[in-house]
């Protein structure tokens, strides 16, 4: 479970995040929806302990990210904006490296890599170097690396960016599979359809603040529009 309270983050004069609060429960997919520059990535970076908040708090399974960074990291798998897989390593090595960094035993890692490769339909890719990989193939490696240690909380920053329909579908399958396994999945996107197709709960962020929170039906009602896209545009405009 991820709880964010009155989070703010300032870079000099720029307020990237002003006031973000929400709770992403376990066994549920929470979508962080907002236009570019709304503060989604910054929020995820604070939750994943890579940035310190200027004000407010975030807690992962009750562990406050500013108090116990390593403890929080142990409970998180984060797919960051920069996928950053190593081109000189094979897919298997990329994934196994992160397993090792999480302190997993060698055999456990190998078993997990095989399992994830079946989920992601990437068995044929495992022992190839990643430098020739397509964007979709890279994404699969990055996703597998993110969840190699079976984290209870999974953060995905714009995971569908630049993916074709097939890969997007298999990514959705993975995300649902994670939810059904009881994980807390928090993912950010600027694509309304993406979020509405997948999320149990939607948090709309604009200009660094939460402007609406609820499921699709609740958002429609709150905005008084009859389709989600209009609702999003209307609600996102409110934060200005």
């Amino acid at each position, binding site marked *: 479970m991820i709880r964010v309270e009155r989070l703010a983050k300032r*870079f000099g004069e720029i307020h990237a995040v002003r006031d973000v609060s929400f709770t992403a429960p376990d066994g549920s997919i929470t979508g962080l929806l907002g236009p570019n520059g709304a503060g989604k990535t910054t929020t995820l*970076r604070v939750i*994943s*302990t*890579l*940035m*310190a908040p200027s004000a407010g708090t975030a807690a992962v399974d009750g562990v406050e990210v500013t108090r116990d960074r*390593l*403890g929080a*990291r*142990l409970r*998180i798998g*984060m797919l*960051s*904006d*920069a*996928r*950053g*897989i*190593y*081109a000189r390593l094979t897919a298997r090595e990329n994934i196994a490296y*992160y397993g090792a*960094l*999480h*302190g997993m035993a060698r055999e456990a890692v190998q078993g997990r890599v095989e399992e994830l490769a079946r989920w992601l339909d990437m068995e044929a890719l495992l022992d190839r170097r990643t430098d020739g990989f397509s964007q979709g193939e890279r994404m699969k490696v*990055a996703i597998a*690396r993110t969840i190699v240690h079976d984290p209870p909380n999974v953060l995905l920053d714009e995971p569908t960016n630049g993916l074709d329909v097939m890969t997007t579908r298999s990514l959705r399958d993975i995300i649902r599979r994670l939810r059904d396994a009881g994980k807390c999945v928090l993912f950010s996107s600027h694509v309304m359809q993406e979020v509405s197709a997948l999320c149990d709960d939607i948090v709309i962020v604009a200009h660094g603040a939460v402007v609406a929170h609820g499921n699709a039906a609740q958002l429609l009602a709150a905005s008084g529009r009859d389709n989600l896209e209009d609702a999003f545009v209307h609600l996102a405009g409110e934060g200005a």
Partner: protein
Amino acid sequence: MVLVASILTGPLTLVLMAHFISDLEQKASNLKVRIAGAAHAPALVNFLQRNDVEIEAAPADYEQRIREGRLDAVIVVRDDFDERFLGGDQAKVEIVYDDSRTDAGPAIRQAERLLRAFNRETGTLRMVARGVSPDLTEPVKVDHVSTATPRSRGAMLLFLIPMFAILSPLLGGMALAIDSTAGERERGSLEPLLGNPVPVSRIVVGKWLASWTFAAGVGLLTLGGFAAAATLYAQPKLKALLAFGAPELADFTLVVIPFAAMSAALQMLICTYGRSYREAQTYVSYLATAVSFVPVIAIFSGIKDATWQLAVPVLGQQMVLGRIIRGDDVPLLDYAVPAAIAAAIAGLCIAALARLLDDERIVFGRS
């Protein structure tokens, strides 16, 4: 690539050096002069023949050849030489050469030496004929006694090996130092890496150990190449000058390994400030240039070996390596002081790096 280059550096340098030395020696020891107009100076020819000097008639176009570098020096005898010589007047000869060519030096000096010897002999004979003691013209008798042993003469040439010992770890650790800092950020792999539940200090130490291994490895391979070449290369002249075998290699190792620890850490720290791989590469090459200047400055400023130098990075290593190669006794302290200082600098760099990589402004750039 780096490995092959580092292994080959030593042998290639030595072969070239040996070639250069033997070439010089050959030109000097093989007594031979080229004379234009030898027929006009029977006395000179007679003198040279008595001294086992081979005389070769100079080709007609000798000036042209000298200018082109195909001839080193030619003694030109004037037509009236014999006439003036027998008459007791000053007879003139010319030595024609191009003194901008350093490799012509031995031949020029040889021609001068022979002519001086001829002068002295003739002068002495003339004085004796007039009943004057030849000692009068030479109030001070100068004998050359050189204290340089073959080994310390070799050390002048072997100035090169300490230089390689210092530069090769810098070159060897460079790629890894850049790739693991600026490269990692440029690739976008730094952010995911730091998201792992591992303290930054451990990640930094891991990166440093990898760079250190490469830096030391390349340094030792380069020196190993020198040692192998110096042992196997059968050029007797060079062998007499060169004493760089297993014992010297072992002593060098004691200096190079701690030095590599420092150079790798320093390179990584500098590279962390590079916003891209290329920028970091530029910074690192400044460092390499600065380091390679130290020995040059030391030589030109004429600083003598002194204990304080042990405390100065690079200068200290340079001095100790120089002593090892000259075959001097190197006390344990001379290994320990530069190593301790290198370790301290490495430690400081790593601590600074761990702080930097914990700083979101560095990890994410100034966004």
